[in-house]
């Protein structure tokens, strides 16, 4: 069944769309080209009254176009390449009750209260995995968590580690706390558990590390 898709004002997707700059190439294409004729051409291929609501063929055509534009050589990718930016950004995760959660339409309103709509919304793309390769999360976790490694490489003694974590926990404020960069949340997890009512917003270059940070089993094994 073919149903016309309407984006409601104030919805999650509308809020995302507003964050895209007006001079973005896909927005310019969207305003210049009307592809709605595709729906009319293919309308007789869909059942009129029954069946699950299908995605519009126009949208599928647009997705194909996006895919062809989303190439490493596309100049439009340059502004969202994290290697050229000054703060590591990937998908932001909101962590509450020691349980990392990706921002979804369900908790978006919670994040929106502190969100700056004028800033650019960055979306994770495959090209960003270059950074993940430079900082393999499993290797980092294995070495950084190793007490021998801490003692040999950084000179941090075994008694100093609990002192450091206590110092951080005792000074941690209530409310919304930024953790940047969070890595695999190896260090931050103690802070997250200390303040379960806080909202921790964590950023990192590496999507692999964020995925590990989202996995609570890893921290309590």
């Amino acid at each position, binding site marked *: 069944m073919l149903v016309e898709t309407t984006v409601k004002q104030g919805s999650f997707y509308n809020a995302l769309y507003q964050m895209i700059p007006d001079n973005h190439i896909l927005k310019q294409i969207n305003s210049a080209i009307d592809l709605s004729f595709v729906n009319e051409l293919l309308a007789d291929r869909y059942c009129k009254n029954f069946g699950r609501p299908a995605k519009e063929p126009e949208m599928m055509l647009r997705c194909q176009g996006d895919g062809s534009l989303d190439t490493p050589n596309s100049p439009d990718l340059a502004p969202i390449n994290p290697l050229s930016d*000054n*703060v590591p950004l990937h998908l932001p995760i909101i962590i509450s009750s020691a349980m990392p959660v990706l921002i979804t339409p369900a908790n978006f309103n919670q994040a929106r209260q502190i969100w700056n709509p004028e*800033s650019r919304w960055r979306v994770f793309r495959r090209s960003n995995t270059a950074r993940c390769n430079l*900082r393999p999360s499993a290797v980092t976790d294995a070495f950084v968590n190793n007490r021998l490694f*801490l003692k*040999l490489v950084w000179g941090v003694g075994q008694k100093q580690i609990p002192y450091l974590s206590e110092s951080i926990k005792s000074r*941690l404020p209530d409310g919304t706390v930024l*953790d940047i960069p969070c890595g695999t949340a190896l260090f931050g997890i103690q802070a997250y558990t200390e303040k379960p009512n806080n909202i921790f917003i964590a950023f990192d270059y590496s999507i692999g590390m964020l995925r590990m940070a989202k996995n609570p089993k890893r921290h309590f094994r």
Partner: protein
Amino acid sequence: MGNLPFKDNSLNGCLSLNGFHAFLKPEEGAREISRTLMKDAPMLMTVACSGERKFSDFIIDKIMIPRGFFTSSLGINAYKQMLINADFQGFNIQMLGALMFVNCRVSGEPSP
């Protein structure tokens, strides 16, 4: 720089645990964190410093930076000056080997 998608003075605090050395432009990162934090909000930071231990410096220069784990290697004073320029004050700095633990607050007044 306007990269963090948060309003000015909207966050209660910031943690940065062993990651500032991975920032491509740490000065701008510190300024951006300062912008988003409320006045007197604490900033808790641990970072590996150069110039403290010879072996640590060797690891940073020969492994961490070439492998991409670190992008920069600054000393204690450079990090402190960077935070002062980013409008932080009330520094409490402790050294644990080559790791520096910094506890400071946002002054809320523009630096001269």
